[in-house]
Every structure is written in C-alpha cells, then in structure tokens.
C-alpha cells in the first residue's frame, strides 16, 4: 500500500511540475508576444507621422509649383493661407475630408527667416492623448507676390488616443 502511495505521489509531483513548466512557457510566450505587438504599434505611429508629413507637403493645395513642375520642400504661402481659411470656414473639410488623411495631428510651419510667424495648417488634437510622435523638417515658404523664399521648420505631430 505504501509503495503504491509513494508511486502515486511521484506521479502527481511530476504532473504538477509539468503543469508549472507549461505555465512558465505560456507566460514567456505572452510576454514576448505583447512586447512584439507594442514595438510594432510604436513603429506604426512613427511611420504614420512621416506619412502625414509627406502627404501634407505633396498636397497640390499647399506645395509650391511652377506650371506643374514641383519645387520640393516648399509650401506656397498664398495657398497655405487659402487652405487655412477654407478649412476654418468649412468644418466638414477638417473633421472628415482631411481627417481621413491626417487623423489626429497638428501640422504647423514656423518661419525662422526673415520673420517668426507660425502658421497652423491643420490642427485636430484629441482630448486624451496616449502618446505622440513628432516629425520635423526644414522647409521653404514661397511668397508668390514677392517671389521670395523664407526659411522655416515644418512640424507634424501625430497623436495616439
């Protein structure tokens, strides 16, 4: 009887340890998996900031052009002014039309030379922000009426809710 009991206890001990090992394995796997998912999510938001910036500067409504020849890294001041006015007068443009493209983000141009003006081209900042990703690049602002290029910084900030 005692021998059988010992045998049973041995078997139960082995099973217990086996289940413990399985449990550790599951914890490993889920930890690795969630870490991987978190990294992918972060990478996606960084990519999104770059995509929003590229989409904004390539919009015909903003970019500099001369008879359809594109001037890279440049925003036309008169177009930007008209764009900002159109978006402010028509909430549907901001809340739906351009939201599809830019999402929760803030796009601004800060002039460095000659002046120090700041133009907020698009602004849809959510109330609850989990994280943000920022993309900065120098850019020209072209004044067609004077035919001059000023120097500034183009900033895109993308928000995660």
């Amino acid at each position: 009887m005692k021998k059988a009991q010992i045998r049973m206890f041995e078997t139960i001990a082995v099973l217990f340890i086996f289940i413990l090992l399985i449990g550790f394995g599951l914890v490993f796997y889920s930890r690795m998996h969630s870490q991987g998912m978190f990294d992918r999510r972060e990478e996606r938001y960084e990519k999104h900031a770059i995509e929003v910036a590229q989409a904004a500067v390539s919009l015909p409504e903003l970019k500099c052009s001369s008879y359809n020849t594109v001037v890279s890294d440049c925003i036309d001041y008169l177009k930007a002014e008209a764009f900002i006015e159109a978006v402010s007068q028509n909430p549907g443009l901001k809340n739906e039309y351009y939201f599809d493209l830019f999402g929760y983000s803030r796009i601004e141009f800060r002039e460095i030379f000659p002046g120090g003006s700041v133009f907020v081209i698009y602004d849809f900042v959510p109330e609850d922000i989990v994280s943000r990703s920022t993309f900065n690049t120098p850019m020209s602002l072209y004044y067609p009426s004077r035919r001059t290029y000023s120097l500034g910084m183009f900033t895109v900030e993308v928000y995660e809710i």
Partner: protein
Amino acid sequence: MAPKKGVIEVQFNWIFILIAGALILGFFGAVIMRSRPIAEDMLAEPILTSMNAIITSTGISTRTAMFVEIPEEKISFSCERFSVGAFSQPIPETNIVFAPSETEGSFLIAWAFDFNIPHHITNFLFITSPDKRYVFLDPSNSQEVQRIYDLIPSHVRKQKFSTQHFSVDGSSETRIVFFSSAGMPSGIQHDVQDGISAIRVDTSSNKVYFYERTDSGIVEKEADYFGDAMLLGAVFSQDFEDYECNVRKIIKKINVVNRVYHRRTARLQQAYPAYCYYVPNHFPHQITSLSASLPQLINSKNLLEQYSRELDKRSCPPVY
C-alpha cells in the same frame, strides 16, 4: 495463485496515462486552434500597412509602374475601402483609387497617374494584377487611341487590335475597351459575363459607356470623363458604380483645390499690375456634377493654358 494486485495496477496505470495524454493533447490542440486565426490576422497587418502607404501614394512616382509583393492573400477593393481577410481599412476620400474588386496572387501592379486640368489636382492610383487583361479595340486605328494605349505601363497585360471583333478565351479576367462613337458591336456585348467586362469610349464627346449583364440582358450605362487620367480610370475601374464613386471624389477634390487657387489668384490680382492678367474665375470651385460642368472645366483649362503662356512672356508669377 498468482497475485491479482499487479494486473489491476497495470490497467489503472494505462487508463491514467490515456486520460492524462488526452488532456495534454487536447490542451495543446486548443491552443493551436485559437492561435491560428491570430496568426492569419498578423499576416494581414503588414499587407494592410504597405497597401496603405501605396494608396496614400507616399511611395510611388507618377507614371511608373511598381510591383508590390504580397503574400498569397486575397485583397478586396471598393471605392471606399480595401480589405485583407477580416481586416479592412478605409481609403481616404482625398485618394482616388481604381482597382479590381478582388486580387489574388503573389504581386500587384500599382502605378500613379497625375490628373491635371491643367493645374495638378491629384494623382490617381491604378492597381491591377498580372492575371487581368486589358484589350483595346480600335477599328479606326487612330493615333489618339495609340497614345492612350501607350500611357499604360508595359508590365500591365494589355493588347491592342485594329478590329471590332475579338474572341474571348475566358482563361483570364478581361476588360475590353472599344473605341467608337457609333455604338458597341453586338458580338462584344454578347461576350460580357462574369470575368469579361466591356466599356466603349467616345473620344469625340468625352463619354464612356459601361456594359453590364443583368437578368434582363445587357445594360449600357453612360458616364463622362475629362482627360487621360479619368479615361484610364474608366478602363481600370471595376464597374460603373465604382467609376461614379471615384468621380464624386474627384469632383470634391477639384472643388477643394480650385477654391485654394481661386483665392490665391485673387491675391495675385491685387499684388500685380493689370498687364499680369489674373482671373480667379478660371478656377471653378462649385462643381456638383461632371456632366453639367464639363464644358466649363474644358473652357477653364484652355484659358489657363493660354493665359499662362502670356503671363510667362510678361514675367508675371505663374498662376499655377
């Protein structure tokens, strides 16, 4: 008498092993079954990301075909969304995409085409796959049709015939594009079925006709186009509804861009002397339908092209 204790013990042992083994196998089997759809969804995620980048045209130069490698997953497109498996993403209203309803295979062909009137409005994105065939039929063998045909990249499976008869073998999905103002031959209409679609293009009136088979026979649906980009859009669109949906997006984009140019031109008009002839009304921005506004758009395009040459001669800043 042989002891019976050992016999019973062995049997119990085996029963115990069987139950434990079944439980363990069942447990792992359940884990595998539950993680399989998760793995499939994880496969969809990078496809969605790369398709999204392509659709927002961040990675495509215009008029250059790009091969997009995709895993062997079915991708479905509509005017407003695209989906991979159970996951779908919206196509932004600012983006015009002409794509087949479904593609399957290891790669897609994507190319962007600029839409100018004459100022740049947007880029259209055309998506197709190597198994889709595009057949141009041009009985008059005109240079205009050849020019349009040459706009399509050579990687796209295309053919051109100077005839109005064409026998379809049905081995691959085919879109027949027939150029004529006189009507679609009944032979081609008869060929329209699942996997074979046809459109007729009348370049003299800027009209395109979609032919669809219904229960009551072949139905002809008329639409307008403006410029090469929209004509190619008709060639690559799924059907009349898909084309019209994209036309609505195009009209909205024209209005938005023209509104900006309208105001910009007004400012230039104030800043420069009268010999720099700036006319804000050359940028109509309250278009509601293409058919109603087509003459106005064509007229504005011609005027803008004419005046831009004059502005250039007078050293005035470009109007667009």
